């Protein structure tokens, strides 16, 4: 029996197409859901993130910026040609959310929460695990989506970009 460390990447590679579809679908679902639940009540979201010591000064801006970014990334992910950009965006956004959670948990005296919809019900640890899983998904998607010839720099023809899928 193969060790899991090599078995798992092999599985992903063999079913590359479907794995990428699933990852993108999950991200679109997550971001559209999160954005819509924020945008349907921007006023509530603004008040809630105002309670965060990290965001209180830019609450008005963040309340619009985050859901708009989420929708933009969802759109990039929906279009096969722009998927790789979308995955990098998703990866960056999830890293930011996770870093924010860690920052607020370790440096803040009181801890407000303002995630949309059902995510509001998650505890902080569950939230952290949830986020890390999504970060991993984005990374897997990026690695799978990058054409093999670009995976090693010494083999890469410079200046050429292609996203055939």
């Amino acid at each position, binding site marked *: 029996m193969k060790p899991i460390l090599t078995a798992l990447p092999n599985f992903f590679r063999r079913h590359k197409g479907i794995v990428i579809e699933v990852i993108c679908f999950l991200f679109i679902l997550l971001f559209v859901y999160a954005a819509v639940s924020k945008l349907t*009540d921007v*006023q*509530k979201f*603004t*008040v*809630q993130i*105002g*309670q*965060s*010591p*990290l*965001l*209180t*000064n830019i*609450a008005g801006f963040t309340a619009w910026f985050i859901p708009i970014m989420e929708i933009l990334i969802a759109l990039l992910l929906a279009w096969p040609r722009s998927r790789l950009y979308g995955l*990098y965006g998703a*990866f*960056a*956004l*999830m*890293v*930011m959310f*996770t*870093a*924010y959670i860690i*920052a607020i948990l370790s*440096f803040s005296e*009181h801890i407000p929460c303002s995630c949309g919809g059902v995510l509001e019900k998650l505890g902080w640890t569950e939230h952290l695990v949830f986020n890390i899983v999504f970060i991993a998904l984005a*990374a897997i998607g*990026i*690695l799978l989506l*990058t054409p093999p010839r*670009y*995976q*090693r*720099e010494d083999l*890469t023809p410079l200046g*050429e*970009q292609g996203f055939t899928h």
Partner: protein
Amino acid sequence: MKRPSILLLITFLFGIFIVLALHIAAPKKENHKHAGFEREFAPEGFIQAIDTLDLGRHGYYFAGVDSTRVFLANRSAVGYILEINTENLQDTTYHIIQANSLKYKALDIKVNPPYFFLMDGIMPFIYRGNTTDWEAKFYINNVYFNSALPLSDSSFALIGINSLKSDIYKLTHGQNQIEKFPELLEAQGGDGIFSTDGTLYYDQKTQQLVFLYYYRNQFICTDTNLQLKYRGTTIDTISRAKIKVDKISSENSLTMSAPALKVNNRASIYNNLLFNNSNLLAANEDSDRFEKASVIDAYDLSEGDYRYSFYIPLHEEKKIKAFKVVEDHILLALYDHDLVRYHLHPSLDKPSTKKIDDQIAERLTYMPEHNNKFFYKTITNNSSKTQKYPDVSHGG
């Protein structure tokens, strides 16, 4: 196109950088910025840990005390009362409260021997039972409140909300009407709920009720009939609540929309002294020292004069969750899952005009046996410091 691993790393660092920038730009230590006042600290060794008791779990709070016992209730194990002998922190007893199919939403348990009370201001109800059989029986219903404090076996001070303003009520068993005292709590900045938030404390010994505001430097001292004695001020400079309140229209609710500046965290009153755990750094304090302890300011409740300050130290790197002064010179502090008993040095009990040598001699005779050695050392080391004391304290 670079290697994806490098791009991933750059993206990752970018994400971290944004949050780090937010963290650096965030308003820092609001409670360190209003240091326009000074504290007079008790000499080193004023507070000494004597015993520690591991309670084994989190979530305990002080439900009540009498002369030799403290009763702790637990937020997660509702219905259990832990009784501890405050003289040695050793004789502990678990009590299980009997209450027939009680449904609750915001249950608070207070023990005021010989009775205990189960109080829920949302359901609402008050149950009462006695501390011999721990059987709770229905006592009062139909009065909604945010918090309630037993003043005697049958009367309570309540904080309730009436047309968007918090007020203090008095509730007495057997009386049809609650007495309202709308003039006691004063709203600020057009908000009657958050600006007037605070806690009630009652001193059985001197029969004084104190309401301490969270967000401004004030407390209110009344008698048991809630007749105002005076309005006192804590030593800091925050006379107006620094809070921002907004409405969430879709939920028709009011909430704070920015981190509030808390002035007073928690307090305890005992024998005419108010011990207030302030949240604000003073001008003559070291900010690191302040962060690594809980500062307590003592006030004389006769007229609300400031007396002195001291630090309750960290215990296993954690600050106190609650504290209570339970008898002369004994302070109990609750940490995550430990109860620590501290001894407060008697030297600051009464301001004195005697010569310093006489004071030292007198203090030595006050000392409990097991601490003799330590305090002797402390006093001789700090005799020059202690000398300042009579000037600091006001006539009590």
